[in-house]
């Protein structure tokens, strides 16, 4: 890796995003609208004594979902475009290293995920009175690591898609099982043993657990840090796999 090339690549990806104002607007506004929906769905529901309100429970996890879903999609399409428009082949004939490109995407869309999570958290805390025992900064930190994981998975999956149609099909394949089994709908320890084992193997489960730790404890817990490390480790693993799918020579 070369710091100058990495910085240039990160800047280039962010510049592309900046020129696409509609995407930026969607990135920032859609989470707030969805949070509003959830808020009004549950605002009149009674809260069992001694438990967080349904909105608090769901909104907290949603703050981690947004960057995960959106950054996965944005990245797989962006990388597919690099492949189909020939820019990837061209880049691979320049001094750019594979990791410069992959980490460039990780940093650029990771930053976009942080901005998205920050705006969504601001809306959740100030507009809809989200209540967490831990700090909002930790929520954004977990969301940021989640965004990087999504970017890494998107980079990896884009290698298996030839068209945009195929690329978007990876969303339900990669994202939906993780959403279903992450513990939001059914607590993980109440799932059947084999489902729990699947859930244990999916990185999003740890991101959700980390968020729940922030929700329940005023100070960052050991479990939270461990979960965060697992999500980060999964992101690095996916990036390494993505690098392995990038071939300078093709047929």
């Amino acid at each position, binding site marked *: 890796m070369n710091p100058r090339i990495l910085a240039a690549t990160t800047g*280039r990806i962010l510049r592309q995003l900046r020129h696409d104002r509609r995407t930026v607007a969607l990135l920032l506004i859609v989470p707030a609208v969805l949070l509003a929906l959830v808020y009004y769905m549950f605002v009149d529901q009674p809260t069992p004594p001694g438990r967080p309100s349904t909105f608090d429970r769901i909104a907290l996890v949603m703050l981690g979902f947004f960057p995960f879903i959106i950054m996965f999609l944005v990245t797989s399409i962006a990388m597919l475009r690099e492949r189909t428009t020939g820019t990837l082949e061209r880049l*691979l004939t*320049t001094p750019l290293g594979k990791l410069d490109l992959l980490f460039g995407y990780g940093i650029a869309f990771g930053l976009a995920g942080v901005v998205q999570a920050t705006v969504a958290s601001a809306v959740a805390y100030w507009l809809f009175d989200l209540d967490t025992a831990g700090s909002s900064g930790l929520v954004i930190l977990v969301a940021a690591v989640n965004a990087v994981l999504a970017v890494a998975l998107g980079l990896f999956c884009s290698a298996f898609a030839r068209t945009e149609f195929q690329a978007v099909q990876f969303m339900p394949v990669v994202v939906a099982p993780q959403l279903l089994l992450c513990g939001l709908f059914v607590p993980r320890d109440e799932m059947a043993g084999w489902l729990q084992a699947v859930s244990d193997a999916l990185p999003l489960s740890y991101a959700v657990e980390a968020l729940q730790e922030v929700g329940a404890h005023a100070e960052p817990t050991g479990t939270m840090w461990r979960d965060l490390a697992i999500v980060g480790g999964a992101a690095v693993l996916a990036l390494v796999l993505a690098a392995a799918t990038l071939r*300078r020579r*093709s047929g």
Partner: protein
Amino acid sequence: MEDAIAVRDLVVDRGGRRVLHGIDATVPRGAVTGLLGPSGSGKTTLMRAVVGVQVVTSGSVTVLGRPAGAPELRRRVGYLTQAPSVYVDLTVRENARYFAALHGRGAADADRAVADVGLSGAATQLVGTLSGGQRSRASLACALVGEPELLVLDEPTVGQDPVLRAELWARFHAMAAAGTTLLVSSHVMDEAARCDRLLLIREGRLIADDTPDAVRRATGVDDLEEAFLRMIRASEAGTARQEAS
């Protein structure tokens, strides 16, 4: 002096089909070598082999004294793909500056490359809003910006207006005079006359490797299109005789 590119018995298969059938060719340094041939003849595949992004079946390609695709060559070789490969959601200038940065060049070099392809007036326009010809010039600027020793340009002048085409060829010759080696492909025979040397390729086989004048002398006609036609017929007759015997 050693040749810039030496191709030895290069065989390439793509999609289960043989695209290059044992090409032997050399490209001298500091000159403009034209790679001429109809669409589908294997020009792009040969160029991809030279820049080291093509999986080859057998044979060797040596570029600037190193095997094609060697990491150090990536700083010394510039490649223009046939379809413009620039970012449509960036401006011309942003594209040029990005590729400049990859080669360790600054903004001034990028702006000069944009001016060299006649796009100064459109520098702040998004590439997606440009015409096809302007887009391929934006792509060309990104290949020129690193000032590489060897430029591999796949159909750089397609769709350009005749005045601009003449200007681009003048620039290619100026660069060659300054020591740059250029390998330029085209399927337009009238561009052959502008090259110092010609490689004529048809159906994955090299038919001619000579100067334009030598091609004219050998075939006895002045028009290069006609000359190539005669060479193709002669080579086909030769192949037919071989098959008959």
